[in-house]
């Protein structure tokens, strides 16, 4: 069955790269431009999103807010969340982890690695 990935990033380039790699790999992809829109899309598709990929630094609502919001949705308490980090910044990664992130993708990512990471968390 086709799995759905919600990608949240304020960079259009990044969204397009994610979209391309994931669609190529057979996923259905939903996109949002910041945390607020991300949670809106999540709410509109509640229970139908298999993986969330989110950027950290975004306008309006950042990635930590997204993690919190996703975990607050009963239908998505156990949905894997991958955060995008540019720097392999240990502090940020740790903060995301303790907020409930499942894993991370270091930007710039290689499409193979990206898909690898998604597959690693998606049932």
């Amino acid at each position, binding site marked *: 069955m086709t799995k759905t990935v919600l990608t949240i990033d304020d960079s259009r380039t990044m969204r397009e790269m994610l979209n391309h790699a994931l669609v190529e790999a057979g996923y259905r992809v939903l996109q949002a431009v910041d945390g607020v829109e991300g949670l809106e899309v999540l709410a509109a598709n509640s229970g139908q999103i298999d993986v969330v990929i989110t950027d950290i630094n975004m306008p309006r609502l950042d990635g930590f807010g997204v993690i919190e919001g996703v975990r607050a949705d009963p239908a998505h308490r156990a949905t894997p969340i991958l955060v995008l980090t540019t720097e392999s910044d240990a502090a940020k990664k740790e903060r995301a982890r303790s907020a409930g992130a499942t894993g991370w993708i270091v930007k710039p990512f290689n499409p193979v690695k990206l898909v690898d990471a998604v597959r*690693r968390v998606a049932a």
Partner: protein
Amino acid sequence: MDPFESIKQTFFQECDELLTDAEQGLLAMEAGDADSETINAVFRAVHSVKGGAGAFGLEQLIRFAHVFETIMDELRSEKMALTDEVAKTLLRAFDVLADHVAAARDGGEVEESRSAGILGEMKALIGADGVEEEADPDEDFGFVPMLVSIDGDDAAPEPASIDFGGETPAFEAAPDATDSAEIWRIEFAPKSEMYVKANEAGLVLRELARLGPTEVTIDGSDVPPLDQLSAEQAYARWTIILTTEADEAAIREVFEFVEDDCVLSITCENSDDAAAAASAEASLDLAALLARVQGAPAAAPPAPVQDLVDVSAMIARAQEVPAPASAAAPRAAAPAAAPTPITRAAPPPANANPAPAPQATIRVDLDRVDRLINAVGELVIQQAMLSQRVTESGLARSSNVALGLEDLELLTREIQDSVMAIRAQPVKSVFQRMPRLVREVADMTGKRVRLVMEGEGTEVDKTVIERLTDPITHMLRNAIDHGLETPEQRAEVDKPAEGLVRLRALHRGGRIVIEVQDDGRGINRPRVRGIAVDKGLISEDQVLSDEEVDNLIFLPGFSTAETISDISGRGVGMDVVRRSIQGLGGRISISSEPGKGSKFTLSLPLTLAVLDGMVVTAADQTLVAPLSAIVESLTPKAEDIHYVGGKDAVIRIRDTFVPLIDVGVALGFRDTPIANGSGVAVLVESEGGGKAALLVEAIQGQRQVVIKSLEANYQQIEGVAAATILGDGRVALILDVDALVTTIRRKPAARPEKRMAG
């Protein structure tokens, strides 16, 4: 298009937007009205530029953006204070950053000394060791060649890793162990935190199986009776014997996301004994596990049917536990063939009526809009032709056909307006490039300039916008280079050291008007006049108004080596600017007050696609005069027409005399003018303010016409701006009123031009 290229294009498009945002933020920072969100937004913009650059391996850009980003990071975390010096340095660094983006896009190079210079300044701001060098560019940014693999399956480096459509590959699909394979013993005991973060043991096992054949043993001895089972707890432990060629790092990578939330031990045990031992362990009695789960002693005989029914009831209860149940329970024991239904909660209903993401805007290829515009243009023409045929057929105005046509006309108008609105864009995109230009020109000339911009939201057709950049650039350069004085000169005349340049856009009479005004010295009229006389553009004794003298600078051949500086001239005279503007149906003029400054005024039609025109007849030709230029029309009386110097006609309109131009003669349709006192005169006004009366035989009426470029289809003709197709299918020429008026009014000036042309 190659997806790699397509995404790269997106990146550069986005860069333009990001840089625009960043510049605005930086300008606000310089002006001292930036809040923390502004600084964060600049940080994000630079960060995104760097991120994208990383994806495409644009090394120069990455390095520069990295230092820039570091400063922004220091500023937003308030480790560095935002001083005027920092803001100014960042603005200059921004210009270089924009150059790096442009260089990356166009495959050029940024002048090393320039880039290095500002990089040094930025590093100095941060402090000697403040910038953490991008440690290993190969590691961080070295995957570029692999990006190509998104295009086709042939390039995928690890075929196994991209194969995951639908069901996961069976464990048997793992590569065969070879001679170089080693045997690894992996002990894996998840903590409950691992499940809270939505990681699953089963997926980890699945990943491991990709590395090679696995033998998985589950230790379920800690699994409590089902009614005591907590969905949030972790009970199961696994021992995996993996035979693989992969090294330990590859194995650890599988546990990358979970290693902090589990007890993990990975040991290499390359002996047959170890494998044998593992095999023995693997034969764990599943019946025993199941029995434990059911709360019965391991050694108990198979549970009677009655007990199984109770199990079903418990399963049913277990399924009422919220979603994490599926994550937290040992369903991951699947490889060991545990009876999976035990704890499997109902999967979320994926793909049921997927709701689309909310979107307020869409991005459309410009080609499509252009096709639509063209089609609407044809629609307007067809509609006009249809109207004309119906009129000719003699149908009553009140007939159903005529009424329906009227509705059609309204609808056509509406469609046309809506389509035009799609292409309308604020001039902001052009204006935004100007602060940088002003900074550069000010730097080069040693002048101090403050640029004030107004009306950035004024909308105009996209095609017009694209062509505004050059003239505005030119006018601004001119204003700073020629208009403004140096700070010392300004001090002498009691002006503030900082010169003011005002760039303004507004709508006026269906046109967009751009004004560039400076508070400099104004045009040196005696000098301009002198140059014009020297160049033979005017005769020495010619009487010209101040305004006419000012506008001499637009004449071809006026620009001299003396007036062309690197900055304002770039080897192009104002006449070229004027010609290109006229090519767009626009006009440019200058007014000036000595000592107080000058003002360039540029006006262009809002769209280059349609025009409200007055259809007239001259020398049996149907012509169109742009309605925007027409002041009034009148029937000339013979006694109002006078001849100056025996040839040039003027007409008296109320108390003033204006030149009377016989359009048929001016355009060369015939040699003899219309008989005195017949025909209709159309009073027109040019952008320069000059008036003239165009003498034609008759006025047919007002009509909206679709502009077809003559240059694109034929060639440019003086006095003709473009062509159109009328309702009856005939081609009609659209008059270039400005050129007609100018030709007559500045005849002496026009002569050398003709000589040069010939």
